[in-house]
Every structure is written in structure tokens, then in C-alpha cells.
């Protein structure tokens, strides 16, 4: 079988709509595309994630599809009061936009529009994190992405309701690839909760390529949530790059419930002192699914604290990767980092590659890391059985308790509820892959 080549990807995207990137940035990204290849398992950061399975499919450019309001309402991830933007196959659905907080304290619109209407902010921040140089897909996104979400929280503003971006994919019996390019700026002293959720509306093969740049300015507070609930045949490459200025706080919760190969790169840069960073994640791969969380935590400046806490439950033939890089620079003294990764393997075929990787260039730091892999606690199971609790129920209680420690880090109450609800369904044996709505529309 002929695999897609790097040029195939360029050809898919270049002949379509207008790219977001200003000419200069596009040139830089295209230059990267020319000089670099698609990631392979020979690349250090892709050793355990083989994208050949993705390249087997002749993807085509995802068209714009009209979506009914009712469909969106089935995916009640963020509650009725959320501010909402909706994208389908990377295209903006303007008529589904909902703004519930006061309009003058923040800007929440599609980035293609912001490029002209808010060009000063756009020009100041777009690709300033150099997100294009992460890998081939992030460069492709930088060069050719046409739209995505633009979130700008004005100085000293607090956004009460969650800011939620839906991205649906809908194939209509075709193999679809789409891109989403997002920019989030939390200005000085602001506070907001953001959710990005990914769902598929049909049982086709998808490749979603997401690149998100986040700038957390001085003393700002940003809570960033990612929910991945695409179908069994949906691939996702999701790249997030964050810059934190001094006194800022950044929280990230990544919940990966379903998908085929899901790769998340989360790249955090501490540019100022006294920052706090918390990265939480939960992954639940089943069957042949493969979920990869690769983290790059860069402490460039000292006197900051970061915490990583990722947990996974792996069933059947599922595989997962946790690659936790921490890089503490020479001058970043009094840095404190903690990293924890716990995994439960429910079958002897499931595999986890957990690799803590701490590079520390000065000796005035506090650092800890721990990685565990195990099965369900047999003693605890028997203890529960001896109290009359059936084996299946006992298993559910133990796994739920294990996952809840991560889920309880979710700050948005409705999203917290939604995730717990899906988890409970999953535990009961209902498949929650595919259409992760809370109306029971999950395909089995």
C-alpha cells in the first residue's frame, strides 16, 4: 500500500481557501516543510508513536458542512451558559456562536475574522511561540490553516462562564483531514476557563491537526481544558505551546476518551518568575487505540513551580505514551517541579511507555518524579467481594476512584460533571468512543 507523503499533505491543503499566516510566517513554515520530513519512529520524540497507520489513508480536504443547533446541544460539555464557538472540519459555523459574558471584556471569534478586525493583536502574537518548528504537522498547520478560535481576555477582566470551542468532524463517507489554528491571549491580571472539545459526527477516517498558541501574561490565570472524544477511526495531532509571563498561573486538563492515534504535544515555557503550572491528564485507550502525551516543560527562569499529574487506564490491545520532559535552565534557580504518571493495565496485551525525562542545569532546585504501572489491586478487589460487592462493580469502583483523582482537578463544574458522566458510562461497559455526547448517542 502506498503511504501518504509529505508532499501529499501540502497538496491537500495548498489549493484550498486562504491561509491565515501572513506571507513572512508562511515562508518560514514552508521552509521548515521543505527541510523536514514527516515524523518517524527514528525521531526521539516519536519513538513509540508510529504514524504509518495514519498515512495509509488517502485523506482529502474537509468541506464545510452546515450543522444544526440541536446537534451541538447534544454535546453538553460546558453547560448552558458557556460562551461557544463551533467549527466543523476546521470551518467556522458562525450562526452557532454564543456569547454570554459581557462583550467588552473579551474577544471571542474565529481567527480568520480576528486577523482583520483585531489585526494588532493578531500580528503581535500569531506564531510568536514558533509553534511551527515542533514537527511537520505544526509547520503544515502554520503554513496552511485557514481558521480556528481567537480568544483574547482583556486586562484585569474575569470571564465568568466557560469559553468553549467545539470542533466536529463529519466525513460523509469520505476520509477527511482538517486543521484548526487557535490563539489564546490572557492579558495582564485576567482570568478565564477555556475548553476545547473534539467530537466526530460520522464513522469515517479523520485526521485533525490542531495547533494552539497560548500567551499567559503577567499575573493572569488561565485554565485550559481539552476533551478528546472522536471516533475509533479518528486520528488527532494536537500541538499546544504556552508562554507564561511572571506571576501567571496556567492549568491544563487533557481528557482523552477516544480516538485512534491521538498525539498531544504540550509545550510550556516559563518566561518569568513566580509562575505556577499544573498539567493534568487522563487517558483511556481501548482496543487498538494509541494515545500519546508528550510534554515539554521548560523552566527558563527560576522561582516557579510546576506539577504534572497524568493517569491512564489501558484496555485490550491499547497502547499509550507518557513522555514527560522537564528542562530546567542554568539560571532557573529555586525552581520546583513534580511529575507523576500512574497507569493501570487491564489486559496483558496493553502497553504503556512511560518516560520521565528531567534535564536539570543547576543544583538549586527541588524535583521529583514517579511513574507506576500496575494492574487492579487484587487484594482490594477481594476485600470488596468479601463484602458482597460483585467483581464487575468492585472493578468499576476502583477504576473510578483512580480516574477521579485527575477528574477532580477540572475546575469548570459542568465539564467536571460531563467527564464523570462519560466515565461512569464507560465503566458500565457502554462504549464512549465516537460520538461522546451525554444523550446516549455514543456509538458502540
Amino acid at each position, binding site marked *: 500500500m502506498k503511504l501518504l507523503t509529505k508532499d501529499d499533505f501540502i497538496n491537500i491543503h495548498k489549493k484550498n481557501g486562504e491561509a491565515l499566516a501572513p506571507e513572512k510566517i508562511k515562508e518560514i513554515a514552508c521552509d521548515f516543510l521543505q527541510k523536514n520530513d514527516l515524523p518517524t519512529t527514528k525521531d526521539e520524540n516519536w519513538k513509540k508513536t508510529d504514524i504509518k497507520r495514519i498515512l495509509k489513508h488517502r485523506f482529502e480536504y474537509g468541506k464545510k458542512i452546515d450543522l444544526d443547533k440541536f446537534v451541538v446541544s447534544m454535546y453538553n460539555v460546558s453547560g448552558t451558559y458557556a460562551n461557544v464557538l463551533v467549527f466543523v472540519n476546521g470551518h467556522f459555523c458562525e450562526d452557532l456562536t454564543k456569547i454570554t459574558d459581557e462583550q467588552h471584556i473579551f474577544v471571542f471569534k474565529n481567527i480568520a475574522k480576528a486577523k482583520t478586525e483585531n489585526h494588532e493583536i493578531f500580528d503581535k502574537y500569531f506564531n510568536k511561540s514558533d509553534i511551527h518548528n515542533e514537527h511537520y504537522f505544526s509547520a503544515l498547520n502554520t503554513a496552511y490553516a485557514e481558521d480556528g478560535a481567537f480568544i483574547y481576555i482583556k486586562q484585569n477582566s474575569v470571564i465568568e462562564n466557560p469559553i468553549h470551542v467545539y470542533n466536529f468532524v463529519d466525513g460523509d463517507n469520505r476520509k477527511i483531514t482538517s486543521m484548526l489554528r487557535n490563539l489564546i491571549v490572557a492579558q495582564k491580571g485576567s482570568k478565564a476557563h477555556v475548553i476545547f472539545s473534539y467530537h466526530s459526527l460520522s464513522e469515517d477516517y479523520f485526521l485533525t491537526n490542531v495547533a494552539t498558541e497560548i500567551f499567559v501574561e503577567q499575573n493572569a490565570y488561565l485554565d485550559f481544558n481539552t476533551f478528546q472524544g472522536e471516533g475509533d477511526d479518528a486520528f488527532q495531532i494536537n500541538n499546544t505551546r504556552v508562554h507564561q509571563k511572571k506571576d501567571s498561573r496556567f492549568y491544563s486538563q487533557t481528557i482523552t476518551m477516544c480516538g485512534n492515534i491521538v498525539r498531544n504535544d504540550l509545550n510550556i515555557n516559563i518566561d518569568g518568575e513566580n509562575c505556577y503550572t499544573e498539567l493534568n491528564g487522563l487517558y483511556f485507550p481501548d482496543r487498538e487505540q494509541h494515545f500519546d502525551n508528550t510534554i515539554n516543560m521548560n523552566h527558563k527562569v527560576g522561582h516557579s513551580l510546576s506539577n504534572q499529574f497524568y493517569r491512564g487506564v489501558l484496555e485490550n490491545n491499547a497502547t499509550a505514551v507518557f513522555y514527560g520532559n522537564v528542562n530546567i535552565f542554568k539560571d532557573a534557580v529555586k525552581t520546583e517541579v513534580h511529575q507523576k504518571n500512574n497507569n493501570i493495565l487491564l489486559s496483558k496485551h496493553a502497553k504503556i511507555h512511560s518516560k520521565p525525562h528531567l534535564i536539570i542545569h543547576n543544583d538549586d532546585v527541588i524535583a521529583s518524579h514517579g511513574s507506576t504501572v500496575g494492574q487492579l489491586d487484587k487484594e*482490594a478487589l477481594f476485600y470488596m467481594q468479601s463484602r458482597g460487592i460483585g467483581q464487575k462493580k468492585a472493578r468499576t*469502583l476502583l477504576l473510578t476512584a483512580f480516574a477521579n483523582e485527575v477528574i477532580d482537578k477540572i475546575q469548570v463544574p459542568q465539564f467536571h460533571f460531563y467527564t464523570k458522566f462519560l466515565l461512569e458510562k464507560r465503566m458500565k461497559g457502554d462504549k464512549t468512543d465516537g460520538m461522546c455526547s451525554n444523550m446516549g448517542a455514543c456509538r458502540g
Partner: protein
Amino acid sequence: MLKIRNLHATIENKEILRGINLDINHGEVHAIMGPNGSGKSTLSAVLAGREIYKVTKGEVLFDGKNLFDLSPEERAREGLFLAFQYPVEIPGVSIVNFLKTALEEKRKHLGLEPMSPSEFLKMMREKKELVEFDSKLENRAVNAGFSGGEKKKNEILQMAFLDPKLAILDETDSGLDIDALRIVANGVNKLKNENNSFVVITHYQRLLDYIVPDFVHVVFNGRIVKSGDKNLALELEEKGYDWIKKEVDELNN
């Protein structure tokens, strides 16, 4: 209530129980004593259904049913309870949630409607009082970070909740200070009635000062070698086990 006939059991091909015979009737308290490694705890584990032990011979009837036809959870729902020597920690599962689930499963098994939340809370209050259980603990995860005494009190609370026909207390007195011992024993005494029975496995006589047994059995080398009334426990306390070992040896020769 419980009939044990010629029970043999092995672990990793090593025979631990070599023909236990025991009858327990309603309303009785039996104490099982014996030196380390004699098979006391194995007996309780086999009755509760721990998988690592293999029953090689004999049978156990629990209220007329063949115990070995039942899974561990079915045995519990039928009214068998084992208070663990080392209660297991279950992080993330609160005591309230744990008890509620266990009770629901039992009621379902018995064909009863689930309890209403208010009924459950009322029951919780009563049982906590009965076993002097600290309310502060109920929302904590089961046994997680509990002291030895708290763990044992939690066992007795669970026992009170599940209201078993037959409760086996496996060295519940080990690791308890005198106050905790009294609380645990009082809990048992309050739960005791003419319809249920208790098996108390212990090394020491001191627990039997509080929970007075109707029968005392001595297990040695996987068999019950001597049975008597509560005075047998006092005799053992005074003389140790050596004289029993000697008696057994003489019998064998």
C-alpha cells in the same frame, strides 16, 4: 448454620488444612486458637473464598448450601462475613460509598428494594453509634491512612451494616490497644443474638474476656485437636501450646 466436614486445603501444593471438622449452630460463639502456622487464618480464608487456596477434599455447608458453589460475593450476600486481620486500603472510595454499594448488592441479592437515602442515613447513624465509630472517618477513603484500631473498628462497622448470619473475626484483636479492643468486643456483643453466630480466631485469651465463647477449639497442624469450653482458653493462656503438641504426638505414636 455451618457444617465443616473433613476439610482439606492446600496453598502452592502445600497442605495446610488436613481434615477440619466443625459444627456451628445458631446463636453460638466459637473461639479458634492455636500456635502460629497451625492453619487458623487459612480456614477463614478458605471459607471467605480466597482464590490462592485450593480445597482438595471435604465439604462445607452454609445454611444447607454448598459453600464452594458460591463466589466470594455470593457468600457475603448469603450472610457470611470475614473481618480481615489486615483490612485493605481502598484509595478514592469513601466508606459511605463503599457501605452503600455493599448494602445495595446484598439487598438486590435478597430481592429487596434499594434503601432510600434517608433510611440509609438513619441506619448509618445507628450503626456508627453501636460500634462507636468516629463520624470524621466516614467520608474518608476506606482504611486509607487509618490507624490499626480505626481499621478494625471499620471492620466491625461493616459487620454491623451487613448484619451477617455468621461472622468470622480473624485476629481482630491483633494490634489493638485496650480501649479499641473493648470497643470492638462491645460491638460484637451488641450484634450477637440467637440467630447469628461468631467465630473468633485469636492467639490470646484477653479478647475472650470480652467476647465469651461457648466453645473453644485448638487447631494444630491443620486439624482441630482439642475442643472445650471457655476454660480451655484459660488453660492455654497458663500452659501454652506445648502440652497439646505433646498430647497429639503421643496419640500419633
